[in-house]
């Protein structure tokens, strides 16, 4: 049913439809509305789960993985400092191949302390074996959540998934969302069917200590699983379209106005909406390549889509201090066209239509370079 809801509440609702058995969360702005709603659903008996008020995010992720290791789905959500405090455990979850699905309401990492949106929290997690999706709007995050379980739990993948939504800009926004029926969701995601679990009737141990003799192969297997995830993402996305009628490209990337365009802006998350709005108003030479799946990185897809383009720009809400825009560097390392790198929107700095106009003009100059967007310095 389509209705106007706060995106955070929509997330809680769709997660609840999937039906995790254990939720362990620690509050942090702007993730709070998601988990508060889940705790309400539990308190009302609408969701049959244990809701654990853990004492830190480190424990939130740990309790989540402990529960998931028992063969049930477990859930948490976080942001910023919270994700940072989970950092150590995140890589353990991936290494122990527990297909946990979480949401991150992206928010800047301190310091200075701030509660607004950018991607400085999730980007440092880009090496550690988590799949990362970035959602454009409420519908996107709901649909991606449903697909995420299928992707993560696939036996060729068995890796955790982080679904990123821009904090406040999405998390606190009310907008129309088509919320699928519980039965359809349950049918689509199916039962969780792990290969190994903590079970007194079938004894296994999880969490080994590896040596130089055998460690590297564990990582290679994770690498292979990440590569395998690409196909899984594509097929699950296709199946999703068939069942629910909504199109999300091939699951890795989506394009907008790209047919016949000479240039493209490559970016992720909610800012895609603003770019679309601007293009709808007045642009035909610039298209959008939206990265849905930041990890696995859509290498081949970007190569293919940028073929024949005169130039591209990468807009990102994060800076790798001492390097530049990290996404721009990744894109540059695979595409052939000149890449203009734009960094802006840090910690909720609004990216205005003027900014967008400027970005497009810059891209049309067909140069490589780096620029701050929305800066007040000088």
């Amino acid at each position, binding site marked *: 049913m389509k209705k106007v809801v706060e995106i955070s509440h929509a997330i809680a609702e769709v997660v609840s439809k999937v039906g995790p058995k254990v939720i362990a969360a620690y509050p942090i702005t702007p993730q709070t509305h998601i988990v508060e709603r889940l705790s309400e659903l539990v308190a009302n008996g609408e969701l049959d789960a244990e809701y654990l008020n853990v*004492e830190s995010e480190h424990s939130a992720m*740990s309790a989540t993985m402990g529960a998931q290791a028992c063969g049930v789905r477990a859930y948490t959500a976080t942001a910023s400092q919270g994700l940072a405090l989970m950092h150590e455990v995140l890589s353990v979850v991936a290494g122990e191949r527990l297909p946990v699905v979480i949401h991150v309401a992206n928010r800047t990492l301190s310091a200075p302390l701030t509660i607004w949106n950018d991607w400085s929290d999730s980007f440092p997690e880009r090496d550690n074996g988590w799949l990362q999706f970035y959602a454009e709007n409420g519908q996107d995050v709901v649909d991606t959540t449903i697909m995420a379980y299928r992707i993560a739990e696939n036996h060729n993948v068995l890796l955790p998934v982080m679904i990123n939504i821009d904090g406040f800009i999405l998390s606190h926004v009310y907008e129309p969302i088509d919320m699928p029926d519980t039965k359809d969701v349950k049918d689509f995601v199916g039962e969780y069917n792990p290969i190994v679990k903590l079970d007194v009737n079938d004894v296994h141990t999880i969490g*080994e200590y590896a040596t130089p003799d*055998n460690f590297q192969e564990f990582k290679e297997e994770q690498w292979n699983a990440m590569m395998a995830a690409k196909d899984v993402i594509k097929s699950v996305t296709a199946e999703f379209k068939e069942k629910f009628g909504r199109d999300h490209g091939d699951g890795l990337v989506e394009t907008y106005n790209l047919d016949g365009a000479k240039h493209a802006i490559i970016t992720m998350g909610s800012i895609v909406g603003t770019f679309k709005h601007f293009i709808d108003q007045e642009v035909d030479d610039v298209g959008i390549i939206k990265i849905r799946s930041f990890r696995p990185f859509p290498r081949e897809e970007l190569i293919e889509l940028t073929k024949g383009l005169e130039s591209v720009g990468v807009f990102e809400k994060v800076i790798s201090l001492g390097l530049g825009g990290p996404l721009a560097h990744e894109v540059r390392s695979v595409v052939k066209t000149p890449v203009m790198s734009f960094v802006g929107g840090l910690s909720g700095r609004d990216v205005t239509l003027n900014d967008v106009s400027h970005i497009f003009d810059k891209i049309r100059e067909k140069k490589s370079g780096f620029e701050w967007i929305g800066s007040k310095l000088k």
Partner: protein
Amino acid sequence: MDRVKIEVMHMNERYEKLLFKPGHTACAGCPIPIIVRTVLNTLGKNTIVAFGTSCLEIISSQYPYNAWGVPAMHSAFENTAAIASGIEAAQKKLGNKVNVVAFAGDGGTFDIGLQALSGMVDRGHNVLYVVYDNESYANTGIQRSSATPFGAWTTTSPVGKKIHGNKTFKKPLALMMAAQGAKYVATASISNLPDFKRKVQRAAEIEGPKFIHVLNPCPTGWKFDSSLTVDVAKLSVETGLWVLFEIDHGKFRITYKPKEFKPVRDYLMLQRRFKHLTDEEINKIQERVKEDWSMYEGLEGVKI
């Protein structure tokens, strides 16, 4: 579903039944396996273990070798209680009536894992948390923890010209857990296995968070001969340095009182980690034992 089953060669019937198996790589003379099997044998096969990074992880789970005979999970160093919380919550939802046990070292419990433990107690998880206390970060080469006793040498409480071993007394974690309201709290020693087993049994009967603190004489870190492990444990009790008590729903009770206290020197001088201690320092420790006992005796019967 395709379950994984691999026959382990040489698994004779006796070893088949063990819940913690030989071939583990504990130092010769280390009592960790004694502690772990005492707990597991008392609880039986219907048990799931969470354990932290520590000697126990390294000795039990070096890929592809594994010493566990019950489902066990290791994830990180400081989150044992949180992992156990998650396991317990999931088992509850699954409708399984199993024992959930957490094992961790003193470093993983008194220091870096304290918060997770306190959180677990706060939320009231039905978990038995057992800390084996070798009074140091042993796995990383015997560094000082907040369970390291006064005066002890460790690699980060070294004996130098200005500073003479560890400056602080042991953090009284069992009392803190009791103060917080853990349903059952006890100390135990490998030199008194009947007492230890009874405590595990009592803990198993109680629903809610339970905490057992076992002293773990470490031949490597405490620097005594590997054959003396049990003797050192016994002396810790007989000198009154290691007090065996339990706090059952807040009610404090000493479970063993030496008929005559041996001088602490007997205990200290067996271990080279204390060999630098001056008479004055030894007296200070002896005094502290007296104080502690008068405190503990004062607590008998009191509800905390």
